[in-house]
């Protein structure tokens, strides 16, 4: 196959955190990320969704090289170890992050210029090129270059998020991680930032991993979507597959739970206990809450991610049976 090397490939990635460690016995492990395989193509936006604590940010931190993996590999343009463990300087060009909260993620004592200049200097950019690149970047994110000497408190929330985006992009990283990039912003400002992120992706050929709880935003922005549950990917596919033809019962529950202003619907109710990441359920980790679970779903080994259609993969024993009528498994 003549497929080009993905910009990012994650293989069997695991990040485990020791937790507590009582008076007796070894500490227990939180398996925040537990065997994740993912690829990100050049110029693609991969939406990453799943409930709080399922490991999305931990996965993102591993990609940024800020969280050493317990197991597995992260390859950037086919090269292993480009992020994890590498020197800070090399890491910075691999991946950068846009944070959720534009208020706390900017240093209040640094002007915009200082914020953008520091990484450039660290990478050997000097002289008038610094000013040129800062001015160009501010224009890219829709801020007037004259604003460079102002401080964060002089900007609105939307403007601050633009500065956060400029900071992430200034070194032209190969992967940009957006962790809830608009959830702290007001509705009307959200639209501005979403439009900006999509424009920049087109204009600069950026590749995004975007984490969001807002599935409307995910559907709007993503090319592909990965759904995580307790440290594992349970479904990935083209955005159309995930939103129009979700196959995993968890994905179905997620989509059914989104309130739609134009359609009043009773939401699908999940049963069972909210899972404890310290003691994940046996077999399929979703089985205690799954309306479709059978006895076999409790048993080890846990189901693998299986391809059900081109580019559409699901981790569910009953995936074939759950295919809607008229669709092949």
């Amino acid at each position: 196959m003549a497929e080009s090397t993905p910009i990012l490939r994650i293989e069997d990635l695991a990040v485990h955190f020791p937790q507590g460690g009582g008076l007796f016995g070894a500490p227990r492990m939180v398996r925040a990320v537990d065997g994740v395989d993912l690829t990100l193509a050049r110029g693609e936006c991969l939406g990453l969704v799943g409930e709080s604590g399922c490991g999305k940010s931990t996965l993102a931190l591993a990609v940024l090289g800020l969280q050493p993996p317990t197991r597995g590999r992260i390859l950037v343009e086919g090269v292993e170890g480009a992020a994890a463990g590498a020197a800070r300087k090399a890491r910075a060009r691999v991946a950068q992050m846009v944070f959720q909260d534009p208020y706390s993620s900017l240093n209040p004592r640094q002007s915009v210029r200082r914020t953008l200049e520091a990484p450039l200097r660290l990478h050997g950019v000097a002289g008038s090129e610094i000013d040129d690149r800062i001015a160009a970047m501010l224009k890219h994110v829709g801020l007037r270059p004259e604003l460079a000497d102002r401080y964060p408190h002089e900007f609105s929330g939307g403007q601050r998020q633009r500065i956060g985006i400029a900071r992430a992009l200034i070194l032209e990283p190969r992967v940009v991680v957006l962790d809830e990039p608009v959830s702290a912003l007001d509705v009307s400002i959200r639209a501005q930032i979403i439009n900006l992120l999509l424009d920049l992706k087109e204009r600069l050929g950026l590749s995004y991993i975007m984490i969001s709880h807002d599935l409307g935003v995910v559907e709007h922005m993503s090319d592909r979507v990965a759904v995580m549950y307790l440290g594992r990917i349970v479904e990935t596919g083209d955005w159309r597959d995930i939103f129009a033809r979700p196959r995993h019962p968890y994905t179905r529950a997620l989509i059914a739970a989104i309130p739609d202003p134009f359609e009043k619907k009773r939401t699908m109710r999940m049963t069972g206990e909210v899972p404890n990441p310290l003691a994940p359920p046996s077999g399929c980790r979703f089985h205690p809450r799954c309306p479709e679970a059978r006895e076999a779903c409790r048993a080890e080994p846990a189901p693998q991610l299986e391809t059900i259609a081109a580019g559409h993969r699901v981790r569910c024993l009953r995936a074939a049976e759950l295919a809607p009528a008229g669709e092949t498994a």
Partner: protein
Amino acid sequence: MSEPLLAVENLRIDLTIGGVHHAAVKDVSFTIGRGETFGLVGESGCGKSVTALALIGLLRPPLSVGAGAIRFKGHDLAQIGADDMRRLRGASVSMIFQEPMTALNPLSPVGRQIAEMFVLHKGATWVEAEKRAVEALASVRVPAPDRRAKDYPHQLSGGMRQRVMIAIALACGPDLLLADEPTTALDVTVQAEILELIRDLSAARGTAVLMISHDLGLIANMCARVGVMYAGRLVEEREAEDVFRDPAHPYTAGLIASLPLLGARARHGRARLQEIEGVVPSVTAFPAGCRFNPRCAERLERCAADDPAETALAAGGRVRCWRHG
């Protein structure tokens, strides 16, 4: 029609700075009937939370009720004494606060804070109350509720704290529930369960609910009627379905068009989201005339000069806009 449980009439909330009163909220009127859920939407800083705080008697300087009436079960909450208000609070009126950390006592285990509601308002013994507190935690889907009950607020994640807040607010089955962004820190699936819980409570006990949210989808699903606030004014008040299908105020229309709506991309391809120019003005700098006029794409000449009054719409509901005046 029977009398509504809550009637807010021409409420004004003043922000007093250096002896000058600025109307942070002005001429806001709405009613909520028993078992009804009324939604309040609008951008950050529009006055949604201060309106709710006024209803539960928790405005603190520099904010105060400047004018108007808040009629509830034979009382005027705008005039009521502090002692009477304290008695109503928790038992008949309760609130799910936007910022759970400020509303929880950092020095008390969360189970005890819930139990206290049963002791204070229902005459339960502490032993009985602690048991009911664990049940209340389970009902808001806190895992291992018996263990969690012993935790202090700082030991819980944001989402867990929000659930504790909700358990406290729902504990005594209030007549009026003020829910200020009740589910923002929660996942969609847990959000759906909490909303279901509020819906069930409202249906079973006739609880009236004031639901405040940025999430228009959520509001449309939960509410029969919706009020849209902008810069301290109620600019539109309608049946929820009508607001979303056929918004009357340009601000409402802008809010709806700025949403990435689920399913829209599949149906029509990816359209650029509509942006509303500018930002919400601060309370001390509200513009003359219609407060939305500097940002409004449909501005008329008089909009900058005269403040539009409320107009009744033929299809029902009201709007504050010269295009309908």
